[in-house]
């Protein structure tokens, strides 16, 4: 399944959404082209069950992946994370009932190191959300070791496969299936703007046809080893993610 990381971008009006499309109609339009979307708003504000139910009703054939709220990945308060996790979990109910939640993405920042305290926290969170289709994305290379891979395999939690610029200390290219599904996130390869720029510039990148061919190979191989493979483009600036996602879909379907 191919989609994009987020769908509600004003700068997609024109390149993707027809001019004049109101933001309330973005998801409906999106669903005309894709069967899955990674929801990122849930990282910035805690989602509610009503919100997600309404989104699910827009298009019943659309499935979702949710990015966990920042209070669970970037701004963790030891005394509070359990209640945040519980709130987040409750919001998922409508999607779980409709069987349209494909994964719950835990994207940890570069500052989340492979240290005892962080490992304990991660273990506790994975345990707390046991039973949900969880996927973990690390940005620090320390996590890419045999112990992490083993631990994720044991817990049936997906290790997110990444495509990033080829820069020192960024995670390596690693595709390892550790869960009943695979998750591939494509962030673009904008080396120049990766560090020290705003989010939009960081993800300002358009994959070339040649690069898409190699991504298609990765996706096909993952798909051959697991029942479900989710691929999301996060190079969202100016609708580039949509352009690339449509091309990849064509490559994979063709």
């Amino acid at each position: 399944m191919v989609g994009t990381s987020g769908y509600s971008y004003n700068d997609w009006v024109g390149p993707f959404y027809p001019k004049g499309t109101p933001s309330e109609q973005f998801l409906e339009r999106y669903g005309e082209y894709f069967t899955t979307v990674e929801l990122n708003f849930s990282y910035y504000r805690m989602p509610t069950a009503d919100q997600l139910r309404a989104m699910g009703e827009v298009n019943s054939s659309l499935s979702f992946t949710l990015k966990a709220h920042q209070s669970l990945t970037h701004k963790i308060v030891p005394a509070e994370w359990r209640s945040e996790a519980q709130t987040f979990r409750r919001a998922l109910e409508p999607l779980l009932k409709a069987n349209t939640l494909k994964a719950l993405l835990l994207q940890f920042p570069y500052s989340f190191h492979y240290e005892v305290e962080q490992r304990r926290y991660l273990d506790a969170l994975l345990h707390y959300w046991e039973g949900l289709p969880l996927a973990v994305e690390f940005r620090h290379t320390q996590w890419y070791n045999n112990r992490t891979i083993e631990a994720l395999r044991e817990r049936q939690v997906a290790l997110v496969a990444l495509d990033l610029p080829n820069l020192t200390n960024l995670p390596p290219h690693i595709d390892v299936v550790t869960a009943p599904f695979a998750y591939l996130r494509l962030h673009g390869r904008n080396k120049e703007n990766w560090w020290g720029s705003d989010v939009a510039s960081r993800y300002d990148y358009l994959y070339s046809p040649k690069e898409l061919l190699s991504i298609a190979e990765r996706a096909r191989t993952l798909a051959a080893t697991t029942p479900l493979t989710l691929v999301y483009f996060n190079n969202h600036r100016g609708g580039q993610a949509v352009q690339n996602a449509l091309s990849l879909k064509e490559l994979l379907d063709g």
Partner: protein
Amino acid sequence: MGSAVIHINLPNFQAAILPLIEPSLHDYPYVIAHPSANRPIVISSSSRAIKEGIVAGMSLSRAFARLPKLKVLPPNPHLAAKVEHSLLEIASHFTPTIQNDSQGHLYLDVSGTSRLFGPPIDCGVKVRRALLEELNLEVAVASATNKLVAKIATRTIKPEGIIEVREGEESPFLAVQDSSLLPGVGPKIGALLQIASLTTIGEIATLSDVEATTLLGRRGLALKEAALGIDPSLVDPRSLRERTLEERVDFAQSALSFDEIRGGLLRAIEGVGLSLRRENLECYSVETHLFYDDGKWCSERINSKSPLKGDEELLEAAWRGCEKILRRGRINSIAVKLTNLAPSSGGDLFTPPLKASVEAVADSTRVRYGGAGLRRATTLFYG
């Protein structure tokens, strides 16, 4: 761009290939073993058996104690040869320079193939996909700048998957991996590392030379070098089965007596045996060549069903060959050639630990002071 190596690793090779001819095995825990052997041991375990804690090297009785329903199957050398041939054939679509270490281990030199197949990691993706599509085999694939780092990388992700260790990032990548993934770390070194609380490769890499040798003996420096990701060896396209190790000894004065000949033979064994063990190999055939004073020469090859590694077992095989071709006459030279090489399967359960450690100490002394630094007294018969 520097060198680029892809390592293909099909773990538990002998067990992993059996479902290709018997798909129903996927659902069973099974092992490969010779149940009729005197003291049968597990040669290779299926993934289901591994999950139950049954691993290669374990005695079959212990394996059964863990899992009474365990299925035991004999090795299938015909299938193994067929799969190895197919692996090699598929890999050869991507590069002509392939080192086939057998038992599901191949190294591909993909330096300079990027115009055809893209960056090394893209080439690795294509190789992995080809193996999956054409052979239905899930393998671990890694791309790195040398064989050692690529090998550790496939061990990190095995049994299957793909990983890239980028140029310049070898040290940070290795630093966080378990020390048990480092080639050369077996149960004995592993126990020493555990005592010293050295759990990661990075911790071995930060030892001083003195600390490394004090703790790990003469192998300490080699292990430290490996922990730093240093491996100057090239991808050797000759398969191990094609490669040979050889040592020749020329007598200062033609030898006539048994003692002289045996002494010369042992000296040749000491040299070639050291080379064998330094490369972490073992062999299945020993050839003995005798060169006579009258210009004639003869040779004999002894094949062994079990792997040969230590000097004593090599000497025994070589001497058996020697006895078959020995005739009256003076001998100018003796050569010993080891063939049918294979990666070392690790320690032998039945080799007394003391004997194995004496050999290891002798090897490290010879590495340090040269072959003449330590000799068996028997070799003194050779002028």
